[in-house]
């Protein structure tokens, strides 16, 4: 293997395509085997199962059952509502990133502080916030102390606001990741860009909104996509812990992941869970495609390319 490797390596510039492929295969195959097992096998098995019941072909019956289930509709609706957190999160991350960029003194402290929530385990975050949001928890004690008793709520017990409360926890945890990503990109931009506009006397936020934002658009889109996917398919941990696995009060915080988990393991209906999982998967794909469409348009719009 070593000898063969060296013959190709010796003409590193343009090795023949076939031998390059064979070479690459050796390096890629360990990862490839794991990926084929975890993703390839699972996805194929999932799709075939979603069309069967008790081993028999039932065409779209599982899908009809799942899509007409009011609980699944509620769950999807909640995931959809959670998507509205993303623009808020992206704006906040941008605001914090440019503010940190302009800050000299204490920058590393503030940066570490803002990033810390992203490092904490979600179950821990969910439990601690569960305590803070109790009826007699830290938040309500604080609100009463500063004379805003009127705002005190049963944050997680009131069905109307429980989902919003949960969204605030997700926002709190995820925004630091965006700050780091955006800040890293802003720092790597050539500094002349900012100098020129400052001499023109443009304001702090205006400079960054009209000059920095288009420059780091690809990172903004990257972060938005990641967070949109999170909202649709990776909020199980928060919901499971904060509602003790129930998605309550009532079904006010039920999300599609919890629906799939419960169908498969509490209701022992893996076929329905598989159909629901396929729907969720397709939603995720749709979202990604939509985002990249928007990105292409907005980038060509900004640079006239």
């Amino acid at each position, binding site marked *: 293997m070593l000898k063969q490797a060296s013959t*190709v390596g010796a003409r590193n510039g343009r090795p023949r395509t076939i031998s390059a492929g064979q070479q690459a295969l050796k390096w890629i195959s360990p990862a490839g085997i794991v990926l084929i097992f*975890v*993703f390839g096998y699972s996805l194929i098995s*999932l799709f075939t199962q979603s069309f069967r019941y008790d081993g028999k072909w039932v065409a779209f019956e599982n899908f009809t059952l799942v899509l007409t289930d009011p609980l699944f509709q509620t769950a999807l609706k909640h995931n959809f509502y959670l998507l509205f957190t993303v623009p808020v999160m992206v704006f906040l991350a941008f605001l914090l990133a440019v503010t940190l960029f302009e800050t000299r003194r204490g920058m590393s402290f503030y940066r570490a502080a803002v990033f810390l929530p992203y490092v904490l385990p979600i179950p821990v975050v969910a439990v601690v916030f*569960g305590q803070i949001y109790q009826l007699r928890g830290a938040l309500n004690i604080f609100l009463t102390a500063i004379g805003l008793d009127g705002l005190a709520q049963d944050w997680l017990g009131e069905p109307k606001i429980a989902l919003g409360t949960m969204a605030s926890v997700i926002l709190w945890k995820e925004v630091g990741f965006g700050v780091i990503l955006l800040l890293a990109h802003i720092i790597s931009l050539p500094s002349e860009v900012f100098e020129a506009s400052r001499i023109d006397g443009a304001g702090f936020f205006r400079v960054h909104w009209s000059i920095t934002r288009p420059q780091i658009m690809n990172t903004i889109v990257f972060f938005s996509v990641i967070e949109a996917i999170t909202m649709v398919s990776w909020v199980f941990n928060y919901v*499971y812990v904060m509602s*003790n696995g129930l998605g309550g009060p009532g079904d006010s915080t039920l999300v599609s992941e919890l629906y799939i988990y419960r169908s498969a393991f509490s209701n022992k209906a893996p076929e329905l869970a598989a159909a629901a999982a396929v729907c*969720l998967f397709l939603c995720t794909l749709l979202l990604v495609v939509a985002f990249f469409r928007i990105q292409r348009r907005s980038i060509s719009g900004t640079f006239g390319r």
Partner: protein
Amino acid sequence: MSITRRGIHGSLLGGASRYLLLTFMAATALIPGYIMFVGAFKTQADFLNSPYGMPASLSFGGFRSAWTDKFPQWLINSFVITTGSVVVSVFIASLAAWGFAHFPFKGRETVLGVTVSLMVVPPVVLLIPLFQVGVHLGLISTLRLVIIIYVGLMLPFSIYMLTNYFKSIPNSILESASVDGASPLRIFRSIVIPLSGAPLITLGVVNLLWAWNELLLALVFLQSNEKRTLMVGITGFQSRYSLDIPTVMAGMSIATLPLVVAYLFGQRFFIAGLTAGSVKGE
């Protein structure tokens, strides 16, 4: 949203409002961690009286009752799973990334694109088929199966990040080595890996955070109490010790400590590494 116009002369006022914003955000970010950590040293009565204050007197009752039962075992399980999956994923991802970065084979962009796009597959989608395989092979409640699944889920991002980084290594360095007759394996071992300290550590920390914190798969695949991870274990704390918040907070503090240590250790490399991975991806 209002666009404030300050200009260079308004920088003093601007500076003050910026620090106000940052301080508010930093406080919001730090307070829950503070409540958790300080709460762990309180008594229940103390906690209910003042969740914000310092403890009236240091109480270790919370830690004592948290550290019972299977807690040490859960901690060990989390260590084994996290270490195993991080080491394996970083190792085989760096091999694959070198394969993608170094050999311009036909269809490379397609294979790489498909691999990277697996990042968007929700883990819950894979749950049911993998669980059935696990039952079939008798691997439910074994750490092995969970490690393999974690490795699989970490690979797409790992390969993406390392391939981008390896591609950014100047060709002149690699070419001079291959003119000397070094094989791809030699180049990989003695040039590429030593040059990639920061991204490898960053990736290690990112994967470590993910594996240590994962709940859904651990919940499903590790059903016997002895095999639970710390995250699954402490999730049950909340209902079990609902009248003993300090115990809950103490358990949470212990579960968080390894992450804070890992973060402080990896922080130096973190930003440089993340930048190399995400921004140069264009």
